[in-house]
């Protein structure tokens, strides 16, 4: 059951990216190009997503177990530190260069785009760089708590 709901959540997420136009890097870059002809659409995508999401997360915050009886795992990291800021800078640069962030890249990969494949392979390589660097670091010095958290 948990696998089915996860699959459906992924499907709905992907459909949302397609419906909103965010699977298209040209449209994402239209939002990031403040100085040019600006397309505010991405702002409304975030607005729509947060409007629905905030209700769900308010409910989730008050539950230790989900409706399926699974433990609710909310991020515990609180600190705004260098890895968060530096990582976000690198991510923002990559996002601005390609117009792809991880979700849309995977949807475009599903559409069979060779360019999406190149982006996704490079992204996985980048993630592996982090794993190797941080695991080597953690063998010596202690790893900041934030780095060991799941996501967000």
């Amino acid at each position, binding site marked *: 059951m*948990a696998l089915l*709901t996860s*699959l459906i*959540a*992924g*499907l709905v*997420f*992907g*459909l*949302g990216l397609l*419906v909103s*136009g965010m699977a*298209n*890097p*040209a449209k994402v*870059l239209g939002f990031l*190009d*403040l100085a040019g*002809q*600006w397309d505010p659409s991405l702002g409304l*995508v975030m607005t*729509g*997503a*947060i409007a*629905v*999401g905030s209700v769900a997360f308010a409910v989730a915050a008050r539950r230790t177990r*989900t*409706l*399926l009886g699974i433990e*609710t795992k909310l*991020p515990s*990291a*609180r600190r705004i530190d260098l*890895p968060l*800021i530096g*990582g*976000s800078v690198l*991510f*923002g*640069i*990559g*996002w601005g*260069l*390609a117009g792809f*962030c991880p*979700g849309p*890249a*995977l949807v475009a990969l*599903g559409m069979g785009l060779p360019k999406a494949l190149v*982006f996704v392979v*490079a992204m*996985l390589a*980048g*993630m*592996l760089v*982090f*794993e190797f660097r941080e695991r080597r670091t953690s063998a010596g010095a202690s790893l900041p708590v934030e780095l060991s958290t*799941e*996501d*967000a």
Partner: protein
Amino acid sequence: MTIDWIAFTPWSALAGGALIGLAAAMLILLNGRIAGISGILAGLLVPRAGDVRWRVAFLLGLVIAPLLYETWRPLPPIRVDATYGVLAVAGLLVGVGTRYAAGCTSGHGVCGLSRLSPRSLAATLVFMAAGFLTVFMWRGLLAV
């Protein structure tokens, strides 16, 4: 700043955004997990017992979404202007950056802001600013 009224698609943006929010809602309320794409993907690179299949299922859903969409209406056009070389560099930056930041547009931008997390707000403001600046400088450079 001039708003591109022809490219601006407010209703489909809001509707698509609501679907993304719905997906995040499903994953947290049923599976107890944050719908952060970079984190879900990265979790497969260092697999842990009992923590693999839900990730594969979610990512599979994301990848096959175009197939389902196609049964309803023609797929939207996807335009990637970046060259293969630029895409490789961009992919690397996105991969490394999202891991250090522990999240991307979905994990911080959608889920984190929905949770009113100051950490996610900081991340979102920073990657948005970096994205704006990069496009500004990159398009300026390409125009020279």
